[in-house]
């Protein structure tokens, strides 16, 4: 989101939200007096409800030296309140036939439950309770710090691809906290304390910094009544709104990063560049980037890179990735796994050639039409999952979009023109400041074909 909306005065957030004109069928939206925004997604096909509470606070809001605190606090949110013992919330949900969990990202921290729809009051009561009354016992915080360290070992340190992603992000962002891992750097995680966690909670957990999404077999009136009853009494905090973060300076240099790890099965190239995100009332560029990623690699047979690299025997896999749901500028990326026997530099040159050709030719009209058809169909299939739609709205509002922005997104995608795509391609594919990473296997762990590939690469001067 942009600077203006980040600085939206607190008073405006508290103002009553007028009923929106053209809401899609089954979607409604309201804001409580204490600033809690709520979205209801009705789907009466099964007696199920999903409650998601999205706090507009994430790892990118952490102070240097305290990386991992947002995620650590997320874990400690299960350690009880005045009314609930440690672990009791999850046990109560489970004993009522439901499941619950939570996740943390750069921009948000989210708690959710999925349960029979007649149990909505129960989970709202417990979720609203821990919005204001968290108690972290002396016995619990140290064991839980071990748990998040084990989580880091499992997710990151046991996976060379994850370790590499962490280092690529650090190289990508000079100044923005998106350069730090959500889970935290290990040595900083080891120093996090109960006091750090309580300070984070006290500063950031408040109804006026949260978005409630309820999806499933409920009505808007029911949810409004229950939300008022359970969340309504929680007082807002005047300073809970997200503060602006350090932004990226102008980047001037392309960067290359290479890592060899015996646990890697085959070479993979990942290239990323900073790209604009979806902003309120301004999602056209993000829509064009989304369609661009689909055109480049959305189909294993018909996409630009599949056609030019996979069908021609240069690459085993190609991918293009972009997610515009982000508070600050995000990344657009492309990845590629060379066919064994194709030297890495040759595969990368073929990628560059394919991208250059696309920059010159622009999108093929028939392919663009097929991508638009897929997007239109995906909109129908998306109706099949209330949980999935809860993510769309929750994440959108958590990063600062409005409900209208989320409503409008499919139409904006459908309206993307070939000119929009050319402009988007120029922005991200013609960049002189990308980060290109090669994650490489140790030479002796590759199969025979790959060994000959590295021999070829050595001849051409490349270091693996």
């Amino acid at each position: 989101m942009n600077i203006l909306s980040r600085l939206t005065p607190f008073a405006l957030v508290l103002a009553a939200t007028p009923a929106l004109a053209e809401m899609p069928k089954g979607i409604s939206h309201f804001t409580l007096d204490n600033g809690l925004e709520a979205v209801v997604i009705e789907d009466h096909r099964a007696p199920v409800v999903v409650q998601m509470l999205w706090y507009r606070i994430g790892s990118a809001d952490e102070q240097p030296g305290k990386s991992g605190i947002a995620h650590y606090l997320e874990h400690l949110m299960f350690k009880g309140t005045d009314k609930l013992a440690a672990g009791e919330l999850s046990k109560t949900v489970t004993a009522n036939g439901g499941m619950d969990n939570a996740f943390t990202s750069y921009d948000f921290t989210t708690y959710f439950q999925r349960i029979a729809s007649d149990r909505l009051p129960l989970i709202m009561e417990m979720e609203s309770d821990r919005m204001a009354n968290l108690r972290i016992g002396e016995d619990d915080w140290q064991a839980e710090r071990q748990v998040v360290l084990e989580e880091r070992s499992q997710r990151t340190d046991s996976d060379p691809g994850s370790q590499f992603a962490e280092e690529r992000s650090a190289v990508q962002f000079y100044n923005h906290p998106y350069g730090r891992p959500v889970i935290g750097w290990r040595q900083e995680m080891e120093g996090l304390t109960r006091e750090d966690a309580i300070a984070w909670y006290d500063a950031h957990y408040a109804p006026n910094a949260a978005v409630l999404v309820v999806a499933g077999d409920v009505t808007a009136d029911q949810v409004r009544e229950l939300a008022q009853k359970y969340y309504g009494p929680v007082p807002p905090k005047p300073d809970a709104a997200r503060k602006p973060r350090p932004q990226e300076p102008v980047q001037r240099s392309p960067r290359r990063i290479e890592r060899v790890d015996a646990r890697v099965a085959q070479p993979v190239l990942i290239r990323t560049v900073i790209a604009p995100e979806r902003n309120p009332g301004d999602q056209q560029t993000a829509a064009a980037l989304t369609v661009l990623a689909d055109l480049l690699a959305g189909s294993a047979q018909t996409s630009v890179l599949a056609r030019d690299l996979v069908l021609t025997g240069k690459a085993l896999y190609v991918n293009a990735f972009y997610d515009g749901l982000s508070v600050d500028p995000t990344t657009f990326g492309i990845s590629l796994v060379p066919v064994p026997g194709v030297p890495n530099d040759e595969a990368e040159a073929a990628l560059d050639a394919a991208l250059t050709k696309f920059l010159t030719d622009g999108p093929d009209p028939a392919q663009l039409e097929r991508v638009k058809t897929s997007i239109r169909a995906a909109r129908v299939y998306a109706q099949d999952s209330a949980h999935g739609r809860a993510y769309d709205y929750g994440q959108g509002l958590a990063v600062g979009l409005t409900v209208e922005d989320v409503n409008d997104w499919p139409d904006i995608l459908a309206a993307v023109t070939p000119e929009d795509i050319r402009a988007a391609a120029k922005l991200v594919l013609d960049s002189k400041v990308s980060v290109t990473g090669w994650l490489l296997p140790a030479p002796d762990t590759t199969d025979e074909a790959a060994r000959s590939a590295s021999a070829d690469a050595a001849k051409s001067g490349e270091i693996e």
Partner: protein
Amino acid sequence: MIRAVFTLAFAALVSLTAMGQGARAIDIQEITSPGGIKVWLVEDHSIPFTALSLMFRGGASLDAPGKRGQISLMTALLEEGSGDMSSVQYAEAVEGLGAQNRFDVGDDALIVSARMLTENRDQAAGLLRQALTEPRFDPDAVERVRGQLQAVIRSEATDPNAIAAKELARQAWGDHPYATSVNGTAGSVASLTRDDLVAAKDRILARDRVVVAAAGDITGEELGKLIDSVLGGLPETGSAPLPQPASLQLTGGVTVIDWDSPQTVVNFAQPGLPMSDPDYFAAFVADHILGGGGFSSRLMEEIREKRGLTYGVGTGLSNGVYGETWQGGMASANDKVAEAVDLIRQVWDRFVTEGVTEKELADAKTYLTGEYPLRFDGNGKIASILAGMQLIGLPADYVNTRNSKIEAVTAEDVQRVARRLLHSDQIRFVLVGRPDGVEATD
């Protein structure tokens, strides 16, 4: 194409083995198509599309001897050219309709999951028929997808989770196909010929081994015609006999595989029991309390919540069509994994000696019965569950009787099945990492 994921041996169908009563009746129509194919349908016209699930019995376990990976590679090639269309032409046609087809294969079934818009359903069904009945196996597509499958095999070889699962399966299942990866080995896949792929198709894609379910915007009459058009061109019988039951070879003990990582991955298993066993539901409830119930389970409480030794530990009854185990997994730091493994044994033993409390039993039952109807919240999920039920031989009214079988379980039942089955000295632990203070037993 090959998706860059591997199928864990014998994990695929676990989620389908426990069904029960919804708080709201699930209206399953049992239909026989004009051509004689049985289909289950849940009709719902609120969203203009149909989800279709086809499961062909036997899955990759129908690979011919010495041809491991044959059915996996064949499955990945079904969407890579058929009839008069090349791979690219076929993909263009499917994408042009907004249809989505997935072709997956596991130990027990080859699974086709399709989503078709109502507005062009007949055309989408025509393309699916073409993929299943007239795949071309063009040489360029075969080589391309073979390369992708080889990449998956290489990835499995450097993934500690896959290494652990593979070793456990190898020790568990002797010479049954369950013992090896559905994707085969670098060598077996390298030697597969086009003839092997044609043979693979004939071994499995036949009407005598398919089960069918659909959910969504379609009537029974429309569905009957659609299924006849999709499957009518397939042979009546598959050329391979269905797999034999697997006999469990597992012994208790500890296997350590050296892997340079800060953490040790642990997979473990002991004998389980078939769904037809009178104590199956007692074991199902026991497992929930022991390790299946997430944050509520005893293993999670002892190993994660109290001591912070792991991010997650869990167990499950792993019931395949041809064999079953009771298994679990976790990961723990190299210097702590010995304590964590020891705790698993202690929790096992204490479960047998102490049994379960009435509160644990009541909480387990409310979870297991309450969670069940939540699974049926979408056309895609319903079609998949209904096909899975047919695959393992459950009747349609099982959705209405399942919960009463869980309600009937008593604390005595749980303790009886625990005494009978849970033996910590029968657990085989496979550790992949550099565990401190753990001795391999053989």
